[in-house]
């Protein structure tokens, strides 16, 4: 019998088809039902499908599902009931977004960044987000929100 591959998504263990070449994006959306991870280009050029894999921000359209075996994945659904998380709180405070299609990817990219690094400048945050496109032009508010969240997490971290 084939040994089953597994990964952990938002704290829940899921089985993976070891033969499938399915991109993680579609596995998450269609098989697991986590549809905050969005299809934007399927070419790794827009960032709207960004998720966190073992702490790193990755585009799920370019990740093959069987390659995440044994790994831990986070999607924007982790924030669904966590409106007190510094990032969510700051995005609401700055009303950082318009249509919101790009936002889950941006939230994941920035969560990975803030979880890893301290004392980032605005430019460093912006450069880390260059792989994530926003067409509504809400960039400035998004950067305001991430900076504020970074400040909140830094304060928490030094307590």
């Amino acid at each position: 019998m084939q040994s089953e591959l597994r990964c952990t998504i938002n704290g829940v263990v899921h089985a993976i088809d070891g033969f499938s070449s399915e991109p993680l994006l579609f596995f998450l959306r269609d098989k697991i039902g986590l549809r905050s991870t969005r299809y934007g280009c399927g070419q790794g050029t827009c960032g709207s499908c960004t998720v966190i894999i073992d702490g790193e921000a990755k585009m799920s359209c370019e990740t093959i599902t069987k390659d995440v075996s044994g790994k831990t994945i986070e999607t924007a659904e982790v924030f669904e009931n966590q409106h007190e998380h510094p990032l969510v709180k700051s995005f609401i405070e700055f009303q950082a977004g318009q249509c919101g299609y790009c936002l889950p990817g941006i939230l994941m990219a920035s969560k990975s960044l803030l979880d890893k690094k301290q004392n980032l400048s605005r430019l460093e945050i912006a450069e880390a987000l260059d792989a994530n496109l926003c067409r509504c032009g809400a960039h400035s508010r998004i950067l305001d929100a991430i900076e504020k969240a970074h400040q909140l997490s830094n304060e928490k971290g030094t307590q």
Partner: protein
Amino acid sequence: MKNQVPKPLLDYPKLGDWLKVTPEKKLVFFSGRVELGQGNITALLMMISDELGIEPEKISLQTARTDMTPNEGFTAGSMSIVHGGQSLRSAVATLRQQILNISASRLGVDAIELDLSSGQILQKGSFCFSIDEVLDQIDLSSEIPAGAKIKEPSQRWVQFREIDRVDLVERMTGAPFVHDMIEEGMLFGAPVHPANMYSKLLNLDVIALSKRPGVIKVVQDGSFVGVLATSQRFALEAAEWAREKSEWKEIDRKIENPISHLMSQSHDFEIVSETGDVNKNSGEWYELTVSRPYIFHGSIGPAAAVAKWENEKLTVWTHSQGVFQLRDALAGVFETAEENITVIHKAGSGCYGHNGADDAALDAAILAKEVEGIPVKVVWSRYDEFHAAPMGAAMSTKSRAHLDQDGYITAFDVEVTSVPHSSRPGTGGTPNLRSAVLIKNSKLPAKSPDVPAIRGGGAERNAVPSYEFGPVRVKKRLVHDLPFRASALRSLGAYNNVIVNEGLIDEIAHRNGEDPLAFRIKHCVDDRSKELLLRLDSETKRYKENLKESQGWGVGYARYKGISGLCAVFVNVTVDEGVVVDNVVSVSDVGEAISPDGVKNQIEGGIVQSISWTLKEAVKTDGLSTTVDSWFDYPIIKFSEIPSLNTILIERPSEKPLGAAEISQGPAGAAVSNAVRHALGVRITELPITREAIINSLLSNEI
């Protein structure tokens, strides 16, 4: 405030057209507008709750669907609040008065003694009862009087002023989009769009296609080909396979360089406005021509729709800007009565105008017709989005200004040459849906008449400068024979026209040694625009000092459509390897701002998108279709390129709301263009202002 009757109220005069009371005694309001990510649901809810005196969370708003809400036309042109919101205010004022009258007779007092606040009836400030107790007595068949007395500005915004976007959190962490709809038994469709809408299918191995992984059925109708599959992934992969394997006959109408093609036209201009004889004075004339290429709407999420046929009735879920117009267009394609089709708006990725939303809806409907009773979801690929969706129109504008001996502009003459700016469903009386051209029973699009002057004009939008310049003449020449597909992109012709006019004003000011802002201020038409520009001047003085050789500043100003929101933008740029915008200061006046922060968000978005258009964006073509396959071929502004933004709003609570979403694109583009001119000493007249364009321009100026 003087009460004009907004148009939607003329078409939908009854209270029941605008609201209903549910069995649970909840008030549900109807709007024919749709939320495109601009925040208008929140603003409309704010207007309702303010007018009635009830917490926004206690009421709900149903946005456009053809079986329920008023038909308010397209949600476009910064008109949601101006028309839609003001209509709702009149309806809500009528409701409020009814509630007060019913309560008064129940209490045996005069209605004038009562007040309605937080959903409660108050008599001299004391609580009497909740409005829930009288909602079942509302007469929904009553007419909204033409003079429905809405609140005075002084009575407004006592409560519920700072409201967060009601839909933001779900958009951040949930699945609210039409792309996310899922139903038991749903199938997933994908069209095989050829490079050009007029291509004819020559050869495709349909049997091989039907054997691709996950494919349930291949649908072919004339040159339309689509697949139905068990998942979105399989549908997209099969369509991509088919596209690569198929052969098409292309039309014989290549236009290699759209801008040169526009410039080489010689047919007559049509005079679209003239306020006197521009040639009556002899004197010095100045002239400037600027062109912009085709640009993409560039939604981050591709077009998508869900469709289902049952007993010859079609239901479509779409992110279209006009559900009624889409319904009528679909009825035309399927040759059925409009009442057989229901179109329901569902959230999509920001569209910025007429993108592929309506086309994807037809694709879904064609595919769903093959599988009775089964919902079919179509999500376009990125290839489709960059090849099949309408683009923002290419255009060129030449402006001439006459300067008198006292240094005043005393005549202004504009010639606009452009592809029509609108080919929305129904424009010109045809469906204007892409696959409608491909199917056997082909429905070709009519020549677009462009947007009429009464709706702000299309190509000529804002060709009339927002200043006192004496006689102004605007001439327009539409060019129809390009093989590309164009339709409304935010601000239509205003973007290019404002860049040209503001550029010409700048050139004249520079040559006469006048400060560009002071030169504008002395030509202001009224105190409102003067206050705006003076404020911009005082807020930006420090940004004009100590500039390096490679730096410059520029301003741009316009009143959108001549009668809507006013916006003035200042930018600093550094021109080095390319152009970097360092700072942006904007001052805007949109009359009454319903949600001041929402207005600022819209203005900022317009500025940033306009900077991206101006510095980066041009659709590359092979003369027949675009050659853009991914975002790598069509770079847009990135996070690290975002300038600091200072967005100032002059609030005028006692004025009419004027709309906000499209007021800043023209002024921002003009400010960037003028700042580059200031830094370089040379003006780039073919947008976008890329590094390449700058080098070419410097080289040709040296010769």
